[in-house]
């Protein structure tokens, strides 16, 4: 049996597995429930067992699901993992995917959301990253959190996060995705503020939550715009529009009634229908005739919706202007930083845009904005990382920077490379964070790289894995990070957005600068932590290597960050013009996107491969320049000048980077202060004065005054009461009589 045949024969056939997809989410959710509710009485070992087993079970199921997406029927040899696209005509199938619809979640009028799950090659990769890296990090945490009393709470939150993240990637519609989107935000908040008795850490959690909420609001508004767009499309389109999309009006509207307007498959069909054709009625420049969006064009609304999704993704994936929460999120335990704030949650924005790539390629403006935002974020974060001395802060800014690179890829339409970088980044950045955690664990929780040093001998496993991961992120040639970054930069350079051709050159050259900067700061961190003599200010005299639960995940992740490079080559390894494995693997996911870009002139996607000469050599030269500069500065220049003041230009630039270019201060000035002032006004004037004093206490005061005045009337004399009643009756009768007489 060849390797290909092996991977095409899944142990569980797709149609058997599909109804059980919910178990992938349910297992970690159950784990969260058990460890959260009964964890305190179960004891440490049982909690660890339940939490790890839940994620391990989920990993096995994910593996089966991933395997099943490529399953072939053993008798016919035909593809088995297919299901009829409900939005298409009868012969229209979604290939290499399995899906199951568990029925209506809720429906209001003609708006409907189904609880539908789908695994295709994109969500399959994400599933394996989440559960696989998630399991390694659970294992790591059993040792890392061994001295913490609230271990059960930690594992409950961690399992909850995994369940929410799996919901996010398994959802077949935007609303269910949003449930996972919010769920990971909540789990992230809970875990950043895990040590909530330290006010600074509790604040960091709150900052992350509030920043994310801003993005989530934009996400929701974007979703609503898409719902309106779908209804406008069904009202105005003609048969030619539907045939452009490979469907008919009856099939499309029937599927809308059955599945609701926010499913990704339905949105893809609409996107195909919006492409300009000869006989069709609706394309991007058609104005919408009725409804709340009357007068706006389809293309304009699509651009606005995509920009709103960009703001949403910027919140979750820490891009400008909402990146400020991620560096502070390092207040949480280190395994959390590795899992949530490096490998999985923060890549949700990249996943979202890859999932909706068919809509994105309709709007070159939105794509250019995404690419530029990504490049600027990446550059800014890389420059800030130059001067940070906290090992976790450097890695945090590095994460922001790498996410920016992924956004560059998504923005310029090289989706497979962005997903590839997402994957390799999950491996090497999780490895770096766990390595940093191991360093902290062995050095009395010291995080200042200036007070570490010389750990190479004392922590050999941590050193070796950290070195591999550093080389991977730096982009040294045989490692995965080099190929993923280079694939993005190559795609950025060769793809073109209509009317915005200058963007690809701009983003490409910024990308080279970012690559050099990445090499510089990563080399700096590595050298200061592991090389050279041990710092005189070290907290403990001799560091100790961590337990196997901590080193094993490091080794696995380091190996993964090496071997993942295979996906950048063709199936025939030595053919340098063949389509890369991952590009080929993801092509069913991006098939609608490809059709749209081929049918329209909006975006020109390039399919060439980077070559050894000149692309690889150029990228390698850039990485070596950055790394070499750092090596020169921190191995030769600074050690030889101990005791002397730094040169003038460093003294001028360093405070700027050290203080993060004063972005937090700028936000304080233009956002937080005005909001606080408004809140103060509302609190003092509206709440304290109008509501509390006038409305609430005023009512009580008036009632008391009136009561104390009227109590003298209440003499206790029954005859006086009777007299009042009689007079009142008399008056009433007199009034009635007058009315009758008139």
């Amino acid at each position: 049996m060849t390797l290909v045949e092996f991977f095409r024969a899944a142990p569980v056939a797709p149609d058997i597995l599909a109804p059980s997809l919910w178990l992938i989410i349910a297992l970690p959710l159950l784990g969260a429930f058990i460890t959260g509710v009964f964890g305190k009485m179960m004891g440490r070992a049982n909690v660890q067992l339940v939490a790890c087993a839940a994620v391990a079970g989920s990993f096995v199921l994910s593996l089966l699901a991933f395997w099943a997406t490529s399953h072939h029927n053993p008798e016919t040899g035909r593809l088995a993992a297919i299901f009829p696209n409900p939005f298409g005509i009868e012969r229209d199938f979604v290939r290499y995917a399995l899906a199951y619809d568990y029925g209506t979640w809720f429906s209001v009028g003609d708006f409907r959301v189904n609880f539908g799950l789908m695994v295709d090659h994109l969500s399959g990769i994400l599933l394996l990253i989440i559960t696989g890296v998630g399991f390694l990090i659970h294992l790591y945490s059993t040792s890392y959190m061994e001295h913490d009393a609230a271990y059960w709470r930690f594992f409950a939150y961690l399992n909850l996060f995994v369940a929410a993240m799996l919901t996010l990637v398994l959802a077949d519609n935007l609303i269910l995705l949003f449930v996972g989107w919010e769920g990971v935000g909540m789990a992230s908040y809970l875990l950043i503020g895990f040590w909530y008795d330290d006010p600074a850490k509790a604040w960091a959690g709150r900052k992350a939550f509030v920043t994310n909420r801003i993005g989530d609001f934009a996400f929701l508004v974007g979703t609503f715009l898409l719902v309106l767009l779908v209804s406008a499309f069904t009202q105005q389109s003609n048969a030619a529009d539907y045939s452009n999309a490979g469907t008919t009006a009856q099939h499309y509207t029937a599927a809308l009634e059955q599945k609701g307007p926010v499913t990704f498959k339905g949105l893809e069909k609409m996107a195909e229908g919006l492409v300009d054709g000869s006989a069709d009625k609706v394309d991007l420049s058609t104005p919408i005739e009725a409804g709340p969006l009357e007068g706006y064009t389809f293309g304009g609304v699509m651009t606005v919706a995509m920009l709103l999704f960009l703001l949403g993704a910027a919140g979750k994936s820490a891009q400008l202007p909402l990146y400020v929460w991620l560096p502070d999120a390092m207040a949480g335990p280190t395994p959390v930083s590795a899992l949530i704030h490096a490998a999985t949650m923060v890549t949700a924005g990249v996943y979202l845009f890859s999932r909706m790539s068919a809509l994105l390629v309709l709007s070159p403006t939105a794509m250019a904005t995404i690419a530029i935002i990504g490049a600027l974020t990446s550059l800014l974060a890389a420059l800030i990382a130059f001067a940070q001395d906290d090992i976790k802060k450097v890695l945090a800014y590095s994460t922001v920077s790498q996410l920016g690179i992924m956004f560059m890829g998504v923005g310029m339409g090289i989706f497979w490379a962005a997903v590839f970088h997402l994957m390799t980044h999950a491996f090497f950045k999780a490895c770096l964070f766990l390595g940093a955690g191991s360093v902290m664990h062995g050095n009395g929780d010291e995080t200042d790289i200036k007070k570490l040093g010389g750990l190479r001998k004392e922590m050999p496993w941590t050193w070796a894995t950290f070195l591999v991961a550093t080389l991977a992120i730096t982009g040294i040639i045989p490692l995965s990070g080099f190929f993923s970054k280079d694939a993005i930069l190559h795609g950025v350079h060769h793809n073109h957005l209509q009317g915005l051709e200058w963007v690809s050159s701009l983003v490409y050259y910024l990308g080279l600068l970012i690559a050099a900067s990445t090499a510089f700061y990563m080399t700096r961190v590595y050298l200061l932590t592991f090389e050279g003599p041990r710092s005189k200010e070290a907290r403990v005299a001799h560091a100790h290597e961590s337990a196997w639960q901590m080193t094993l995940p490091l080794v696995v992740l380091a190996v993964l960050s090496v071997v993942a490079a295979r996906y950048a080559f063709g199936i025939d390894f030595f053919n340098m013009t063949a389509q890369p494995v991952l590009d080929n693997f993801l092509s069913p996911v991006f098939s609608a996107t490809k059709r749209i870009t081929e049918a329209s002139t909006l975006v020109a996607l390039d399919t060439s491969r980077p070559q050894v000469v000149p692309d690889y050599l150029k990228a390698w030269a850039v990485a070596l320049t950055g790394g070499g500069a750092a090596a020169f500065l921190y191995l030769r220049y600074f050690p030889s000048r101990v005791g002397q003041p730094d040169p003038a230009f460093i003294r001028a630039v360093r405070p700027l980077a050290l203080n993060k270019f004063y972005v937090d201060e700028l936000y304080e000035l233009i956002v937080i202060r005005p909001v606080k002032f408004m809140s103060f006004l509302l609190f003092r004037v509206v709440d304290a004065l109008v509501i509390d004093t006038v409305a609430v206490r005023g009512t009580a005061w008036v009632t008391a005054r009136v009561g104390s005045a009227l109590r003298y009337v209440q003499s206790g004399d029954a005859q006086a009461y009777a007299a009042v009643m009689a007079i009142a009756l008399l008056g009433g009768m007199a009034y009635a009589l007058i009315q009758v007489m008139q």
Partner: protein
Amino acid sequence: MVPITYYLLLAAALFCMGMFGVLVRRNALVVFMSVELMLNAANLTFVSFARMRGDDLGHVSAFFVIAVAAAEAAIGLAIVIAVFRSRGSVLLEDLRTMKH
């Protein structure tokens, strides 16, 4: 035949006397009697209207009021006796407990 107006005027006069008694007399027993006077003024009105309309509705109402008045008299007198036993007086000005 005496016109109905006279019956109604008589009933009104009786009612006013009863009400005056309720409002100004000090002794609870006299007040009680005045209440009976008011009830009977109402009865007189019912019966006069019954006669004018020539049906039995007014008579029924009058008997109903008489039955209620009997029950009321029994309970009311029992209350007066109970008050006298506990306080040694049936004068209304001594019974000012309905204060704030």
